[in-house]
């Protein structure tokens, strides 16, 4: 469950400067955004370049806190004054597939995928089983010992998805997961994300691939210059 009400967020605020970028302008990335997605819902996040899609996903991934408005993720209200430990625990329940994958370059694919479980201090035997299963699911069993740099773009994308979902998070966010991929690969990845949502996670996928959206019909959130122009939330 995700719920935003009148959320406004601009870059360049002191709390954000170091982490996201060193921008000194105060461009408003999101203004008065209000919507909600039920548990298990799947949403496309659409809009032209610079509309604020990545900004919204970062906010939902708690890489920043909203400057005004209310944000609720998986039953937790996120706002100024929320404890850092609470945010960290919440982040463990929000899987994020970054546009640039953000795999650890020095770790093998299986170690990368195992990270969320190891942060939870799961038993190593269980970790090995889970990693093997999830790598089989994304079709990377053979490449488990490879380093990220030794993988193709599509393979890295699938590794990133595997890492985002291995701890069975309640929310999965994906920022243009099909950007540089050919059509069959794109369909495969979106198919996986749909599967994750049918397993109960709330999934939001940002893209400007219209063909893909047409092939996988689902409600869409449309952003334009930081404002939500269309919300098909009432659809199933």
């Amino acid at each position, binding site marked *: 469950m995700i719920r935003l009400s009148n959320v406004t967020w601009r870059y360049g605020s002191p709390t954000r400067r170091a982490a996201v970028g060193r921008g000194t302008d105060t461009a408003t990335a999101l203004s008065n955004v209000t919507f909600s997605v039920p548990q298990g819902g799947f949403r496309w996040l659409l809009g032209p370049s610079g509309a604020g899609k990545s900004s919204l996903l970062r906010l939902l991934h708690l*890489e920043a806190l909203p400057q005004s408005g209310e944000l609720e993720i998986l039953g937790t209200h996120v706002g100024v004054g929320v404890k*850092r430990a609470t945010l960290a625990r919440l982040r463990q329940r929000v899987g994020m597939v970054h546009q640039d994958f953000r795999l650890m370059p020095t770790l093998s694919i299986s*170690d990368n995928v195992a990270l969320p479980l190891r942060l939870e201090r799961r038993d190593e035997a269980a*970790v090995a089983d889970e990693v093997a299963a999830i790598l089989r699911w994304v079709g990377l069993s053979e490449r488990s010992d490879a380093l990220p740099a030794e993988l193709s773009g599509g393979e890295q994308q699938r590794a990133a998805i595997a890492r985002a979902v291995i701890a069975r998070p309640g929310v999965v966010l994906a920022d243009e997961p099909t950007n540089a991929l050919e059509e069959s690969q794109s369909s495969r990845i979106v198919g996986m994300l749909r599967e994750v949502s049918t397993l109960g996670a709330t999934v939001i996928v940002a893209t400007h691939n219209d063909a893909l959206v047409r092939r996988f019909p689902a409600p869409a959130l449309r952003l334009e210059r930081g404002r939500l122009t269309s919300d098909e939330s009432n659809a199933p």
Partner: protein
Amino acid sequence: MSEAKGRRRDGLALSRALPDRSLLAMVAAMSLLASLTYAGAVGARAVSSRWAAGAANLVTVQVPDPEKPATDTTAGSATSMGEATAHKDGVSDASSAHAAQLPASQPEKQSGSINAATPDMTRATAIEAVLQASPDTQLVHRLNASEIDRLLAPWLGAAGASALPLPAVIEVHLSRGATLSPNVIASIAKIAPGSLIERNDEWRVRLLDIARSLLACAALAILLVGAIGAAVIAMATRLGLGARRESIEILHGLGAVDGYVASRFARRVAGLSLAGGMAGTLLALPPLAGIARLMAPLSGGGALTFGTGETGFSMAEMVTVLATLWGETPPALLWGLGVVPFAAAFIGWITAQVMVRVWLRRLP
């Protein structure tokens, strides 16, 4: 084991992120400094406590030309070797007025007081008798030839002492809190003008002051070394954080709590600091052992005797004392030195914890 190994596979790769070798070298240098300073402080404290305990009630009397008859107060003795320093210690040329008063002020031992010094005695035995008669003294002991030899051996060699015209040296242990009465001093001056009375009390106070100042300096120096060490460790941690910025951001995004990243850094830094601290402390041992060995011949047993030098308490005597005391205090010294590596590790751990946690504040 596999769990520990697994936990390390989190992409931080700290073994390559921190400037290991320079951190180790810097911590080792700091620990070496701290060890040497601490050893000096232990020496200073030992000196001061020893003085406070033992030397407070000790007075030494030097009698020039000890074998002259006690009554000899002619011009000849005025030019004797003790004359130049006599005034310094308040022993002026004979003052018969005090001597005359003496019996009246000696309630217990008065019968034997000044009268003990009969004309046929030598100056040294006469003074011994006067001192023994005083109610303020507990023990009066005239050093014999071999004791003087041993005292002077470090400076004069094995055979030299007996060849010189040496003054008699009388050690006087006063009763607790007592001082030599003016009457006794006057008597001594009368019997043997030019006698030198060393009241260690003044020296003790001065030495205690010096020791206290040295201790304060040492404490300050150790604090400073610790602070500089913490600053060095902080800089090294910063370098490590900078080198692993992206990995840390990824872990943070995956839900790692601050404590996880902080303890990963802290453990690594503490380990390096412990190793550096051990290296530094070990490096301090050879010079310390060398000094101890240099001092060993000077620290031979026997009573500590002060004030036998012509100019009072000399540097060389201080070394003797230090050596003797050092010989007695290895446990304290070794305990303290043993603490240094762990102190370094603790400083490393706490510094890294603080640095990482502050650094992580940039991420919400």
